[in-house]
């Protein structure tokens, strides 16, 4: 892409993300929406977070990992265990990343 094309692409991306973010905040009136959808949307943010993070933990180049010797899995498990124990966001990040780096650099996983 040329610089001009990247510039226009960026403008479009900004417009798309902002309209998604502002979508439900634009109108003062409640949008007509069936009750089941209104209730179902409560699950959407949790689902979105899980959907973004899961592929990063178990896929390599679009393929499911085929060995248990993957540093990311143990890093993630360590992070989850730490969260269950202490409920600390910072601790979860540090513990998970630490275990992952230790396995990767010590054992070469």
């Amino acid at each position: 892409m040329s610089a001009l094309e990247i510039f226009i692409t960026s403008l479009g991306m900004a417009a798309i993300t902002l309209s998604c973010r502002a979508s439900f905040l634009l109108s003062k009136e409640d949008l007509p929406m069936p009750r089941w959808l209104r209730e179902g949307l409560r699950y959407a943010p949790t689902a979105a977070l899980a959907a973004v993070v899961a592929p990063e933990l178990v896929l390599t180049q679009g393929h499911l990992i085929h060995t248990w010797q993957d540093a990311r899995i143990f890093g993630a498990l360590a992070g989850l265990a730490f969260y269950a124990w202490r409920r600390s966001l910072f601790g979860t990040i540090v513990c998970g990343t630490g275990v992952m780096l230790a396995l990767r650099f010590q054992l070469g996983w």
Partner: protein
Amino acid sequence: MSLKSCLESLRVEALAFARRPLVREGARDAVPMAIGIAAWGIVAGVAMAKSGMGVPLAIFMSVITYAGSAQIAALPLIAADAPMWVVWATTLCVSLRFMAFSFHYRPYFAHLPRGQRVALSFLMGDTNFALFVRRFAEPAPGCKHEEYFLGSALMTFGVWQGSLTLGIVAGHGIPASWGLGFAGSMALLALTCTQLRSPSTWVAAVVAACAAVAAYALPLKLNIVVAIAAAVAVGVMADHARPARRGTKP
């Protein structure tokens, strides 16, 4: 002189704003997440530098878009000279989750004028959404939710843009083998955990995770859309199954 006094009054206003208790609380709550955001920002910056779009354009894109996952998804497409609509369609699929956030923020921000609502929505992100919901499970009457939101959102914005710029400029000096991006994934994982407050949210998260992995091969990052749709569908069914089951008991 007038410019100086104008700047001075701005500074005083900013200081007064930063002293409000809810703004401080929001900013303080965002600090533990900063390490994850910074690591991810650097990774995204390095990816932008390596895509060969040049430093000014990379900074321009990240300041006006302010959506890490959309930018990371768009980069390989831009580098591969994909048509513009493909980049935009991918951005839309990755950004649809913001609509769910937007829907949730509605009751909290409904009293504000429209301009402010749109300005706040520009700062929406995964991190400050999860922090916000953890802090305010329900809208509290008379509470200035937007101040907490601004505190955490501005902290996140600053850390993200700073680390991203560092990544863009330092670019090739940071080897991929460090696995810096993993810290970002761990931050998201921790945020997902904060959302798991009931059995049905657990089910929704597991369904979404499985669907996102299973549908990963779909083009345009549609796997995220599929995962959200699947989780919402299962969530609705779970909600409806519960009263029915209770009804059949004698």
